[in-house]
């Protein structure tokens, strides 16, 4: 029953946020245009890159687009649910984090439901267009099994990237810094995984598979759907994406709760 209560509460909390954002309609539309432009920019860069060379480590332009679209789609959900975790340090420093502790609900949940960024529609529009375009170009046959697999991997991707954001924010409990770690660790890591992992040195591939499991966000699942080889890794590794996401997110959640238990207000 508690779960249903929380789901209801989540929608109540975010609907207030959505109404607030819709007051600034011009800003909202500008941000969506901005996001789509930025993602299209990266796609155009990929196209220019492959104009002369045709393949990047056996991946063609459309295959790379597909890889990119998976990352963007799961990132879109991440932005809605978890992106604001990176600024936990600001809340702690300003003392505004304390308000999440004095309510009769789980502080992690409360902090998560605090914000709902509507601009992630930009991510959804972009990735859906790419999915359709690439499916037509590469003649991907979307059997129901494949669709289910794609959805499951996207949930896995959300949990992995969300878990990473939660871990980064947890650092703030110890060091009162988190935003910067996002820009040093996560932002470059996300950019790295926009390209097929196979091009990186072996050690980087291993890290992306077993330490910071970003490889499971898009590379391994995309390799399964496009039936591409993944050197150094078994082909079926992509199927583990949801499981990896679940485990990784649980670890992140526990670390966050551990950090919370030793949190002392800055008292400002």
């Amino acid at each position, binding site marked *: 029953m508690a779960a249903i209560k929380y789901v209801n509460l989540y929608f109540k909390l975010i609907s207030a946020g959505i109404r607030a954002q819709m007051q*600034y309609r*011009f*800003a909202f539309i*500008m*941000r969506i*245009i*901005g*996001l789509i*432009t*930025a993602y*299209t*920019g990266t796609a*155009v*860069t990929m196209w*220019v*890159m492959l*104009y*002369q*060379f045709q*393949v*990047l*480590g056996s991946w063609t332009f459309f295959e790379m687009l597909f890889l990119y679209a998976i990352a963007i789609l799961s990132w879109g959900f991440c932005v809605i649910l978890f992106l604001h975790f990176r600024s936990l340090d600001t809340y702690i420093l300003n003392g505004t984090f304390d308000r999440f502790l004095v309510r009769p609900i789980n502080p992690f949940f409360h902090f998560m439901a605090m914000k709902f960024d509507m601009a992630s529609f930009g991510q959804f529009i972009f990735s859906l267009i790419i999915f359709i375009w690439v499916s037509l170009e590469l003649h991907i046959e979307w059997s129901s099994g494949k669709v289910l697999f794609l959805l499951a991997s996207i949930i896995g991707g959300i949990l992995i990237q969300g878990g990473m954001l939660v871990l980064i924010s947890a650092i703030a409990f110890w060091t009162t*810094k988190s935003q*910067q*770690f996002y*820009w*040093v660790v996560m*932002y*470059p*890591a996300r*950019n*790295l995984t926009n*390209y097929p992992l*196979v*091009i*990186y*040195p072996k050690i*980087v591939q291993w890290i992306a598979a077993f330490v910071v499991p970003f490889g499971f966000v898009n590379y391994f699942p995309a390799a399964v759907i496009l039936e591409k080889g993944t050197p150094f890794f078994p082909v079926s590794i992509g199927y583990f994406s949801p499981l990896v996401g679940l485990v990784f997110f649980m670890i992140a959640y526990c670390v966050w709760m551990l950090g919370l238990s030793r949190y002392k207000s800055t008292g400002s």
Partner: protein
Amino acid sequence: MPKFHVYWIFTKKAFLRSAVYRFDVWSRLGSNLIFLLMWGSIWTALYAGREEAGGISFQAMLTYIVVSQFLTGVNGAGTPLWEIQEKVRTGDIALELMRPFNVPLRYLFADFGSVTFYIVTALLPIYAILFIFMDFTLPTDIITWVSFIAAAFIGFLIRYCIEMSFGLLSFFLVETGGIEDIFYFAMSLLSGSVIPLWFFPEWLAKIAAYLPFQGIYYIPNAIFIGEIAGGEILLSIGLQIFWLIICYFLLRLVWNRASHKVVVQGG
């Protein structure tokens, strides 16, 4: 004529300020190196074992990317754009407008300070080690070195003028999101920072050739690896200076308009 000793103080202060925020310097270097790894791997995979492509040797291409990533670090070490926009939004910029100095020039000189700190303490040591241990193309004659440094410096100024002009757009538009993204995309692709102009499709290379962005990365990088050599160096630097003058007047125009249009938003 501006009094440069006044601005010089901003340079010194910014230098000292960077020394305090050392964590920022290290984190910025960390992410710069990850992007170097990314682009290095991408170009290695694109060449796929070939010695040369399109007349450019693999070694020269890798050098191009390393130099480009170094200059990206240099260009990114100044006052971030959002900080200036935040000042415009909160109205703090009004305080700067009251003071007897030229605001764009003041920020430029402050950038000299923070950039110098970043180069000396972080970028130069790491990239020097890279160049010692890896097999990159180093210019052998002093003229190439001098013209590379000159071109990189002019490129820095061009980038500053363009970026500042865009930052000041927030005087006119409260939300600059979309425009900014187009700008950053143009800057990263058309400047040749990650893909040299000679690998572009012909039509795109033509567009890039008529825009100022190539002066930021492409020209200094190409001089470094000797792709632009001899008399072409003078021609390229001349082109850079031409664009610098235009971008400078653009910045002045935007700044004059902006400082007369301080919108009071209350609050």
